């Protein structure tokens, strides 16, 4: 209630004092309406129109949605994005957890150094680092193929083959996101009360048992949080495949956001692209809800 301010400003400044918090949040709220909530609603509206940029928009009902369901490239991009998300959930997350445990362990040597090494990728430009990996995976002069050749293995066309091209994208995702994800787990680990381990030690539980019966259950809320964040982030992958392959060969690496960009910004099909955006939004929303539901059931 606004009464707390009344005691301070007893002299007719009352109204101004009550208005103060509203004026303080007004700029943020203005920006929020103009550049988030407004555009989000606008996007939903656009998805019911055929809109090619120059020509006036034409209302076509749910035709965009019908066309997307029948659009093979859209489904390829969905499949690719699911591959990226699955790699993030089932490779990045476990690696990040192991890394956090190692970085938290009293027996790790050169801890400060390794922390720096693993955290540095967080702040690198995805474009710069994807271009570096573009060279590392180059068919003719990349470090990876050169190493393979020295071992007597045939060089592989990493970025030009439909079967392989997703691998470099996933490697960049692992390289860039593992350190960041481990920071969350580190915070979670440091929040586990030490006497739990002390008690287990007294009972003679070895470190594997302690990990299984103390660390993992204690980390469950953090794991839920991390998995939601990782899922939301990975469903929006754009930079890495855009730089490494441009979505090719033959859409083999194209993510949903890349497809949105292709349709909307390169081909000026605003209605169609807005529909892709809305479908992505709904999927992200539903998936995070499901994820939270599943975890909550397990916890209780």
């Amino acid at each position, binding site marked *: 209630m606004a009464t707390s301010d009344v005691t301070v400003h007893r002299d007719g400044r009352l109204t101004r004092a009550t208005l103060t918090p509203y004026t303080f949040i007004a700029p943020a709220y203005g920006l929020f309406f103009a550049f988030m909530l407004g555009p989000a609603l606008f996007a939903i509206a656009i998805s019911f129109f055929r809109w090619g940029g120059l020509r006036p928009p034409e209302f076509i009902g749910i035709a965009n949605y019908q066309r997307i369901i029948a659009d093979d490239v859209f489904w390829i991009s969905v499949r690719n994005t699911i591959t990226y998300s699955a790699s993030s959930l089932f490779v990045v997350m476990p690696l990040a957890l192991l890394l956090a445990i190692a*970085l938290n362990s009293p027996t790790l040597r050169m801890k400060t150094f390794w922390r720096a090494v693993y955290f540095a990728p967080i702040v690198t430009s995805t*474009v*710069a680092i994807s271009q570096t990996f573009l060279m590392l995976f180059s068919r003719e002069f990349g470090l990876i193929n050169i190493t393979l050749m020295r071992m007597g293995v045939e060089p592989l066309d990493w970025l030009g083959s439909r079967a392989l091209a997703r691998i470099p994208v996933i490697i960049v995702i692992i390289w860039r996101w593992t350190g960041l994800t481990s920071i969350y787990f580190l915070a979670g680990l440091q929040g586990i009360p030490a006497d739990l381990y002390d008690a287990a030690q007294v009972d003679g539980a070895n470190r594997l048992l302690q990990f299984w019966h103390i660390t993992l259950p204690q980390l469950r809320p953090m794991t839920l949080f991390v998995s939601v964040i990782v899922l939301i982030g990975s469903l929006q992958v754009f930079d890495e495949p855009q730089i490494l392959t441009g979505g090719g060969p033959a859409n083999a690496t194209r993510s949903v956001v890349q497809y949105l960009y292709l349709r909307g910004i390169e081909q000026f099909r605003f209605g169609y*692209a*807005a529909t892709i955006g809305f479908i992505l939004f709904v999927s992200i929303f539903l998936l995070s809800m499901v994820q939270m539901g599943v975890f909550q059931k397990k916890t209780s």
Partner: protein
Amino acid sequence: MATPRPSTVVSPGRHRFLSGLADLGMNFAVAIGGIFMILPFVWMVSASFKTTTEIFRPATLLPSSFNLNNYLDLFTRWPFAQWFTNSLIVAGATTMAVLFFCSLAGFAFSKYRFRGRKQLFFGLLGSAMIPFPILVIPLFVIVSNLGWTNSMVALIVPFMAPAIGIFLMKQYMEYVPQEMLDSSRMDGASEFRIYAQIVLPIVGPGLATLAIITFLNSWNSFLWPLVVVRREVSMTLPVGMANMLTAVSAGSARPYGPAMAAATLVCIPTVAVFLLVQRYYIAGIASGAVK
């Protein structure tokens, strides 16, 4: 609990041997993974000093000599200095605006009790659920109609008050004691002065955290600048760098050397600064996770 540190707990010899082995394995695994993390940096920096011949026929990981041609090329054949300036201005202005708007709103949410406070706050937090890609098309339409394409305004204004920032500032400001505010009010200080002169200095670490996160996000941002900026001189670093490798006329080789010089100049400063201030960054990330 009188139990000393785990390592000093007396255990049978076999156990100690096994746990020693586990420690060795862990140190080894961390080192192997670490090499995988460092290798791209080594490649990036070393390729930036290689000649074109060396890049296309690499015999060694390190360059035979440190030639600076790639760096010279970068500044003469591309408007790299302009891109760098653009990125600095965009990231700097975004950061200043975010610090101001988020701390102001965070101050209101943490230190005032007003009608609708909870609803307004959770409404704002809910907006963090809106993924950016859904906004790309409508924002592009809006920005085009405002005539903001190719301008820095389009890269700054939509990102000036992120919900996460308001949340972070609110968390930090909860710890500012109410008595400090009350006593300044007794002295007749205006509410804005209380915010600017009493509260802001106290939440310095929070501001630092928010500044680092915002600056880096803006500095590395790619999708949105790619959408809005077409003119070469208006590009930010990521867009310009991407353009170096994609806008190559047919038949000519991609300029990998200069691209790696650019990558080095873009990554090394951020990594260096990050290593100096990483505790703020990590605190910020962790505080987002701890409710």
